[in-house]
């Protein structure tokens, strides 16, 4: 290894072995069966010669030693010590397409030269067999005498073998940030050590303890667990109904906060309901196994769903505790690992007799009625916020009253050409062939062909004087020439209007904007009691707004046909200009057909309130003008009732008041929601049915194809216990955390390692099976696993052990040598450097800006998301209203999680549909956009800017010193360090351009700074610092675990 001459070749082997995650034996090292040979056999051979008998094409098995070395008719696959006699060796080297293995049509790669040499050396060495490493119980290995800390010793042992060394300690501030990110998910939590102090072992240890004890640590660990547990606040399928399981999330946080030992943590989540004298919290814990998706789709067989849920539980247990891809075994024996379908359905049997019936929504029994202790405090906080908002509304109302009085005073003259309704002449078009005439009164008469259904488009050109549209009216007329003298020209003469739309095309534009309407009133609607051939769904005019052709407006059933009128209100008045084109679409797509309007007229209104909300169409403004006209003198007192109505109409156009009103309306809804949450919730939990269900293997995994009977039992390949010792979920949980179970402790410490180093010692945390990655440091993994069990499954203990190693504390800066030898940093000659999860970036932005609300637990909250993200995917079934007030600034662990549309600011996150334990880490332009433009990030920048400018500065007469001092404060907040001189230049360029721009654009300052719940600022300084703060928040360093 030291010989320079040998370097190129060594490098090849090394790079290969390091990058593979499975350090292959170098030519001078013995071949290790479980590391070097078994994965090869598994990958290339087991598909046809493995545990799954259905796939076996000959009777040869290569997954058992006895069979691989057994005489099969004319050959032996592996003859220890004898290459020439080993059929496997001959086949691997064959170039004959009929003989070579793996065969071409298997689409499995041929053995490489390197792999062949491993096989050769292994057979020559006597082909020693063994179990897959992960199925051998871990033994505590002896620690190499290379360092005081066992972790460092194991790490350095590997490094020495490739002549690498650990890196020096990271800078103090980096170490503190790293520790805080890993243990709490934020770059700092109040009252940490001064970054200028020397981090002695004692100080470091105390800091580790402090963070481990913090509630933020419990929340951070909960985030890990919630992803693994596929926790969500909604069902996932079909209507994606909302659940009430959030108290379980608080149970998880409490468990971590109390450092509940992992064996107990397991037991309560698997079998809290079965424990003697189970507390409500222990029963609550079993919600873990109810966090799967549920499907309440109309017409779905609930039993099919129920079987899905049982399967999901087994798979989740397999991934989270055992690191086994049990999902494969649902349909067939495992192709690679020694788990049979019988094993699988024997495990499923533990979950098969839950007292559930496969339903979803609020019928997903069994439930626990549970009142969360965490709502009361939320209510108090919310109530005081409601009072604030209501006071603000009242204040605005008072101000609006003054504005109204001023407005009244200015009505000194009656306006010329005042019009309430604008009746215009349309250009008519039909989709299905109707012709039209328009008379002098702008009444439209249908003529010519009479199609079964039709969409009419009436297009109007906006005239002088009509400055906005707040609503429109439709008058429909009977006519003697129509069928039965009614409204339509055929059928029974009744009309059915199935939908209306309104679109505006601005002059010069080729596209139209769709305008939403919020109310529709008519002077007559079909009496619900009226029975006829006509589909009973047709009647109310409001049903014209959903554009669903199966319902709509009709006047069928009235005694004598007469003129009728409907009035439609726009969601918001639309400003229009002379020449703009307004199209009203009248849709006649009724089920019955033959009901197209024959004669009608359309008018527009510019006023808000009564004219477009009532079918009478009264107008306080018109009445006011009328009153003035009739009075002798202008400005006489007007009747109080009219004055009041006029004021209400005025308020509708008073934007400042409307903003305050919207706020107080929303917070009142939030308070109401909390009140509901304070009563006992229905938590989905486990409980056994009185009568057990029969347990079967499901043929090919199909829910209604039961095969042979099975009974509850644990898979013997993992840890064989007689079935009578494992009768219930209690014993199943104990089996998982049995000292002799080879998997659980390893899998768990691997998760903890991933929490601290970004990736596990086993790169495939979900798969410890034969196809998974071999550990980079198998001895270290085992040492930690045994340490975990010896500590009584104390997770915090392991985190502390890891945190106090020098390996953890070293620098992440890389030398070019280290990069070329170990590009993926598998050997940890440097600390890993990687982008942090999106949820941490959000939480941290809240924390360092000071927005952070540290309250723990309670009902889910709604962080900012762009408008419409729920509505557009659920076709309006759900709309998303971000939380107002302090609830907005709570950690992401409390964010409402809707499965059909997970929070959109969380890129690369787990999807919470099925259990996920691996990290995703990509680097895309969409992430850049999110961090640049997400409201939380911008609001944090805004608040940081405000605080930076408020920073007390001692030297006041030197603007440069003031500037540097503010920047220094800002960079301490965001990066926990001072900027270096070379960096100052880059920042000052940005600052200069921002400052120059905002100094001359006050209106832009207001727009920029009025973000989230922040008021507009007028200070160019604040705007300038906001730009700088946003830039710092987007630095690679700010989002990276260094």
């Amino acid at each position, binding site marked *: 290894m030291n010989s320079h001459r040998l370097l190129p070749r060594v490098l090849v082997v090394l790079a290969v072995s390091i990058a593979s995650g499975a350090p292959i034996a170098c030519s001078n090292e013995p071949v290790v069966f479980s590391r070097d040979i078994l994965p090869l056999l598994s990958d290339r051979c087991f598909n046809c010669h493995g545990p799954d008998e259905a796939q076996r094409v000959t009777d040869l098995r290569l997954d058992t030693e006895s069979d691989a070395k057994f005489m099969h008719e004319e050959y032996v696959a592996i003859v220890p010590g004898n290459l020439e006699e080993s059929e496997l060796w001959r086949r691997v080297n064959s170039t004959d397409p009929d003989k070579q293995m793996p065969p071409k049509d298997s689409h499995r790669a041929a053995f490489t030269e390197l792999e062949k040499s491993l096989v050769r050396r292994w057979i020559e060495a006597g082909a020693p067999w063994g179990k897959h490493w992960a199925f051998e119980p871990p033994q505590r290995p002896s620690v190499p005498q290379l360092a005081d800390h066992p972790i460092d010793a194991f790490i350095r042992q590997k490094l020495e073998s490739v002549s690498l060394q650990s890196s020096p300690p990271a800078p103090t501030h980096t170490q503190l940030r790293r520790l805080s990110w890993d243990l709490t998910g934020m770059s700092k939590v109040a009252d940490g050590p001064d970054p200028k102090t020397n981090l002695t072992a004692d100080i470091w240890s105390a800091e580790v303890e402090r963070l481990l004890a913090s509630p933020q640590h419990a929340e951070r660990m909960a985030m890990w667990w919630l992803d693994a547990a596929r926790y969500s606040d909604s069902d996932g399928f079909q209507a994606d109904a909302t659940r009430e399981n959030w108290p379980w999330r608080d149970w998880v946080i409490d468990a971590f906060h109390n450092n509940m030992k992992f064996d107990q943590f397991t037991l309560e989540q698997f079998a809290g309901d079965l424990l003697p004298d189970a507390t409500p919290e222990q029963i609550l814990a079993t919600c873990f196994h109810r966090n799967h998706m549920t499907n309440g789709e109309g017409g779905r067989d609930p039993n099919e769903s129920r079987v899905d849920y049982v399967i999901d539980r087994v798979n989740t247990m397999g991934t989270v505790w055992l690191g086994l891809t049990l999902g494969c075994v649902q349909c067939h024996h495992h192709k690679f690992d020694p788990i049979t379908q019988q094993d699988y359905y024997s495990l499923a049997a533990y979950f098969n007799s839950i007292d559930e019936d496969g339903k979803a929504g609020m019928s997903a029994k069994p439930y626990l009625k549970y009142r969360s202790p965490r709502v009361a405090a939320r209510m108090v906080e919310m109530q005081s916020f409601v009072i604030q908002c209501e006071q603000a509304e009242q204040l605005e109302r008072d101000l609006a009253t003054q504005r109204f009085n001023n407005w009244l005073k200015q009505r000194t003259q009656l306006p010329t050409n005042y019009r309430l309704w604008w009746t215009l002449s349309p250009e008519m078009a039909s989709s299905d062939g109707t012709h039209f005439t328009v008379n002098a009164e702008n009444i439209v008469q249908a003529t010519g062909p009479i199609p079964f259904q039709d969409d009419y488009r009436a297009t109007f050109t906006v005239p002088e004087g009509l400055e906005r549209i707040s609503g429109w009216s439709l008058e429909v007329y009977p006519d003697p020439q129509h069928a039965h003298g009614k409204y339509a020209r055929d059928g029974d003469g009744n009309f059915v209007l199935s939908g209306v739309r309104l679109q505006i095309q601005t002059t010069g534009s080729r596209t139209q904007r769709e305008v939403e309407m919020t109310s529709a009133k008519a002077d007559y609607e079909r009496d619900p009691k009226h029975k006829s051939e006509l589909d009973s769904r047709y009647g109310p005019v409001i049903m014209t707004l959903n554009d669903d052709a199966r319902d709509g407006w009709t006047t069928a059933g009235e005694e004598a046909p007469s003129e009728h009128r409907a009035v439609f209100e726009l969601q918001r008045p639309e400003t229009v200009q002379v020449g703009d084109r307004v199209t009203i679409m009248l849709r006649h797509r009724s089920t019955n057909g033959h009901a197209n309007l024959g004669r009608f007229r359309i008018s527009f209104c510019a006023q808000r309130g009564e004219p477009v909300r009532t079918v009478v169409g009264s107008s306080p403004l018109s009445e006011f003008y009328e009153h003035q006209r009739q009075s002798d003198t202008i400005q006489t007192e007007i009747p109080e009732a009219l004055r009041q109505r006029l004021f209400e109409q005025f308020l509708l156009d008073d934007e400042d008041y409307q903003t305050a009103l919207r706020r107080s309306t929303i917070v009142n809804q939030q308070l109401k929601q909390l009140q509901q949450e304070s009563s006992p919730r229905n938590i989905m939990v486990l409980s056994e049915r009185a009568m057990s269900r029969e347990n079967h293997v499901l043929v090919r995994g199909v829910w209604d194809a039961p095969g042979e009977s099975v009974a509850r039992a644990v898979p013997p390949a993992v840890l064989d216990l007689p079935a009578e010792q494992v009768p219930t979920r209690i014993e199943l949980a104990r089996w998982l955390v049995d000292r002799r179970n080879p998997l659980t402790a390893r899998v768990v410490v691997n998760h903890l390692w991933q929490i601290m180093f970004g990736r596990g010692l086993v790169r495939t945390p979900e798969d410890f099976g034969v196809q998974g990655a071999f550990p980079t440091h198998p001895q270290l993994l085992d040492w930690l696993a045994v340490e975990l069990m010896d500590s009584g499954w104390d997770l915090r203990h392991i985190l502390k052990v890891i945190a106090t190693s020098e390996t953890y504390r070293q620098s992440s800066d890389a030398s070019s040598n280290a990069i070329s030898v170990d590009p993926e940093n598998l050997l940890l000659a440097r600390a890993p450097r990687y982008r942090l999860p999106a949820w941490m970036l959000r939480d941290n932005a809240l924390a360092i800006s000071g927005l952070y609300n540290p309250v723990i637990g309670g009902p889910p909250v709604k962080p900012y998301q762009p408008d419409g993200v729920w509505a557009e995917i659920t076709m309006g079934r759900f709309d998303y209203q971000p939380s107002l007030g302090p609830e907005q600034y709570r950690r992401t662990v409390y964010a409402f999680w809707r499965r059909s549309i997970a929070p959109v600011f969380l890129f690369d996150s787990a999807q919470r549909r099925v259990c996920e334990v691996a990290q*995703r880490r990509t680097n895309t332009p969409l992430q850049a956009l999110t961090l640049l433009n997400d409201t939380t990030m911008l609001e944090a920048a805004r608040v940081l800017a405000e605080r930076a400018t408020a920073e007390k500065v001692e030297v006041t007469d030197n603007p440069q010193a003031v500037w540097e001092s503010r920047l220094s404060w800002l960079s301490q907040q965001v990066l926990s360090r001072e900027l270096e001189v070379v960096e100052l230049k880059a920042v000052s360029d940005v600052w200069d351009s921002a400052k120059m721009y905002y100094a001359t654009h006050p209106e832009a300052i207001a727009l920029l700074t009025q973000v989230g719940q922040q008021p507009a600022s007028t200070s160019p300084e604040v705007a300038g610092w906001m730009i700088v703060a946003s830039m710092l928040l987007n630095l690679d360093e700010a989002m990276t675990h260094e």
Partner: protein
Amino acid sequence: MNNGRRMLGSERTDANTTPWAVHRRAFLCQAGVNLGGAALSVLLAERGQAAGQGEAIHFPNLPPRAKRVIFLTQSGGPSQLELFDYKPQLYKLAGTELPDSVRQGQRLTGMTKDQKQLILPSIAKFSRHGYSGATIGEWLPHIAKVADELCFVKSMVTDQINHAPAMTKFLTGHQLPGRPSFGCWASYGLGSMNRNLPDYVVLISKMKRGSDQPLYDHYWGSGFLPSRHQGVKLRSSSEPVLYLNDPEGMPRSIRRSMLDGLSQLNQQRFERSQDSEIETRIEQYEMAFRMQTSIPELADLSDEPESTFELYGPDSRRPGSYAANCILARRLAERDVRFIQLFHPDWDHHSRLSSWCVSRCVDTDQASAALIVDLKQRGLLDDTLVIWGGEFGRGVAGQGQWDSPEAGRDHHPRCFTVWLSGGGIRSGMSYGATDDFSYNVAENPVQVRDLHATALHLLGVDHELLSYRFQGLDFRLTGVEPSRVVRDIIA
């Protein structure tokens, strides 16, 4: 221990998943970013040696007939009986019970399993169209005019009878969520053709009515593939892509200056830490900046001539409509986006075919046909594969009172119709057939996985070779069951 993991495992994409076979360019993008040059060349040299038979697979590995796909997804299950699958024999059998010999134990959803299965013949009238004489229902008059450009596959089969599992299967090959969608596979296998837009763009019709079937984001999710392959939803709002718009009060000049500063500072950090991920991040921020221009340009239809809107129909002037999305699909195709997927919801006509089903036809008919015409006149149809279809079909029995106008049809998995056009497809033909009841496939069944295999084939990809290693298994879009390329529909 195997080539896949060794060569392609990449910290920077998914921590523990490994593409098994992918062309070198994708490999370089994915794995190369965190490898020093030296180690990279060593690895690549080893790759050549290791693979034995040569390089990792380059896609396209077959002569491609199509460069891109436009997938017009009709969510809810359009009725093949009213639209394409003409069964005149049924008029004689109207109101009679569906013979058991036809039903053969087919599962029904809970909505109709307790009612008699009485035959409801098509309530739409059919006629023949084009030289090919395609039978098309009267509710699709515009599609009828382009019949000779289309290939109708009338023998599609699925095994799912509920929406979410069926649509998940239709798009990802498997009924449970978690697998990558077709478009993600295309992006992953074939890589990008342009620098300013995502590879996979999704457009959803804006509807007023709350549809009963949400369009879950896993329909275009990347599953276990790196998330940069996931579909990017183009929204019909002032912010066409989430977070695209800079905050109000921030002009482009300030954004540019901020990104310049950011890039300088990040570069300084790179020089110290040598983490090449920082260089990637600098590039991603620059691409984000470019997208802030390229996407609004794409979404802004003001440079389209009047004739475009006349072709696609009056609804195309309304942003967010299916028709407007069809225009956008053509614009995306012109810009070489690899996979363009439209979703039109609410084809779930359990009742009232003459209003419910008709409405969806009115929404989509003219624009779907216009897209074909438009692509053709621009020379894009030759290398653009257009697919139209939903997750399953509908049953021949009436749901509700069969002879009332209020009758509808329940879900039906055993046969449904999709049509394809362009991109190497034989136009003016029908493939496969159903029995007299449009209930069972009578000849040439086409499984969902066969459709996927065929579409991949047209893109120049052997579906058996496009795979990704996850949890120790090599996953493919077409799954493990045998699937076939339907060669008879290829020109």
